[in-house]
């Protein structure tokens, strides 16, 4: 059995088992529902044009603006209709717009003359989106690398705990075991994200946000390679952490550094997303690059060469961590007496033919 075939078999088993795991299926469905809800609901909830009460004399321009007008005999009746909640707003003599607590923009606009607007930077992004999009990217990376990283660690511990690892190691190269798990984790993670992205994009198109789709397109396209490498980086750490312990209960102790390596960059990106200098730095640091760099691309202040440099840095780091993780994995896989220290695992690898 060569390493390649063994890797394929191991990955296939991991995926098959995971696809039958109820927790995994439910969490995927929950993600999809959230993605659909977040993109479709706003347009459903905003509920079309405001209803407005006005006397017949004032109703003309409001109708032209496409508002739902309810004609009332006088201004007092109009005000009462607002107070009763029958309409969103009323237009009374002056003209004055009456509303309960929220100025109805469409009514105001219908009554104002607007100066012509010429946008000098038509691509600039809505400030709400500049907050939401980085948060979404960082969140997806956080949740996914966490979920599937833990899954890799659990699968490694399960094999150690049940000792089936001895049979496996006798049959196939240790590298193939690790590679198969990493491959399965990556495929499942990407698959889940792709599904969520598909639903989200469909939802946006359905909700009439086609413009957003074209704006997000490149950022999402770049997110994929960054995500892939970032995932390998984090998953390597999870694999090493899993190999160091023998029981699922003990994973907490060794997973702290991994958790920090995921959480700190997450909060840094979320909280510093409007600090250009900090974001530039974060977009080159391998642990935060997967979320920070696509975000800078989205806000339009990353040059193309920067993306490649950052990606190259991430690639080198990911390979380094993968090799280090593999070494720790090989060094501790067969140590079944309590917890192995990283140093022991690093030094005392069995040298097998």
């Amino acid at each position, binding site marked *: *059995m060569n390493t390649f075939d*063994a890797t394929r*078999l*191991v990955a296939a*088993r991991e995926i098959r*088992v995971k696809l039958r795991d109820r927790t995994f299926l439910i969490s995927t469905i929950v993600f999809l529902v959230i993605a659909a809800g977040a993109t479709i609901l706003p347009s459903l909830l905003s509920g079309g044009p405001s209803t407005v009460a006005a006397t017949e004399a004032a109703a003309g321009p409001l109708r032209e603006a496409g508002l739902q007008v309810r004609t009332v005999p006088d201004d007092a009746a109009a005000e009462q209709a607002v107070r009763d909640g029958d309409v969103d707003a009323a237009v009374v003599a002056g003209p004055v717009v009456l509303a309960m607590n929220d100025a109805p923009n469409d009514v105001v606009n219908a009554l104002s003359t607007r100066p012509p607007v010429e946008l000098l930077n038509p691509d600039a992004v809505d400030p709400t989106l500049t907050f939401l999009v980085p948060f979404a990217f960082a969140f997806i990376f956080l949740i996914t690398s966490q979920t599937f990283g833990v899954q890799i660690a659990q699968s490694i511990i*399960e094999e150690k*705990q*049940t*000792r*089936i690892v*001895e*049979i*496996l*190691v*006798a*049959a*196939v*190269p240790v590298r193939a075991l690790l590679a198969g798990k990493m491959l399965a984790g990556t495929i499942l993670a990407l698959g889940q994200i792709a599904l969520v992205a598909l639903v989200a994009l469909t939802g946006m198109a359905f909700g009439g946000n086609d413009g957003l789709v074209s704006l997000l397109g490149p950022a999402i396209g770049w997110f994929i390679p960054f995500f892939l490498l970032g995932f390998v980086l984090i998953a390597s750490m999870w694999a090493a952490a899993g190999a160091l312990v023998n029981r699922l209960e003990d994973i907490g102790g060794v997973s702290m550094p991994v958790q920090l390596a995921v959480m700190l960059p997450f909060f840094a990106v979320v909280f510093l997303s409007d600090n250009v200098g900090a974001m530039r730095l974060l977009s080159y640091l391998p642990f935060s690059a997967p979320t920070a760099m696509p975000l800078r691309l989205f806000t339009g202040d990353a040059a193309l060469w920067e993306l490649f440099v950052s990606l190259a840095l991430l690639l080198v780091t990911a390979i380094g961590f993968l090799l280090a993780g593999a070494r720790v994995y090989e060094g501790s896989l*067969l140590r*079944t007496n309590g917890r192995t220290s990283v140093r022991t695992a690093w030094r005392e690898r*069995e*040298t*097998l*033919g």
Partner: protein
Amino acid sequence: MRTVTTVLRLDGVDRSFGDRQVLKNVSFDVVAGRMTGFVGGNGAGKTTTMRIILGVLAADAGQVTWQGTPLSREARGRFGYMPEERGLYPKMSVREQVIYLGRLHGLTAEAARRSTDTLLDRIGLGERGDDLLETLSLGNQQRAQIAAALVHDPEVLVLDEPFSGLDPLAVDTIVAVLRERAAAGAPVLFSSHQLDVVERLCDDLVIIADGAIRAAGSREQLRASYTTPRYELVVETDAGWLRDQPGVSLVDLDGARAVFDLAPGSDEQPVLRAALDRGPVRAFRPVTPSLAEIFREVTQ
């Protein structure tokens, strides 16, 4: 065609964990077509030896050869191994994981499926094949473990305590399966601390204590070489006169029944004649020592 020289050979194998040497110059043969029992106390080095054979651990010195060639990963892939501490995937069905292990050992999907079905039927798990492993009784999990070791029709079998946790019926089933494999020409090495089971099963025996091989060879050879000649005599009346017989040292005397050892070079026939001179002899036979006795003797 396998020949008698088809042998799994350990040659001068050393292994230490830290500064504790657990295997000292371990050498023995496991011959094709024979069941070799591997016995030793807890911590004697049985499991470490088996792990080294399977390449799960590396030897510090010495080597393991199969058919005269040092073991490679490819060769080990055709071995069947049952580790001491049991475990398969608790949340996978028996059939599925046995197929998976067959495939990891290089079987095609179709061959793995066929072999698994045959094997599960053979060891009495056919009905439970689609159940998750964790829902099976311990004894049935043990059977599944045997299936996992045999699914790829291995050239060599290395089984660490294959009978622990099995009821007598299951032991018989597994023994029959292992004998078949041995008869088909595979060397079978199995460890056990149940000396009576080993005694019943093995053709050859390897005894290890404190990481060193104390005795190795066929069961009969060991019996012959590791015991002083011992006889049991049953007569009509008191057998106390044996005390004064030259070359005889009494081991046990119970009225008309006596067990005695003969000094080296002494013959048992004069003793029998002396007994017949005194009256009828109801029984006179050599006492073959049990494996437990040999074991106690060589490991002391």
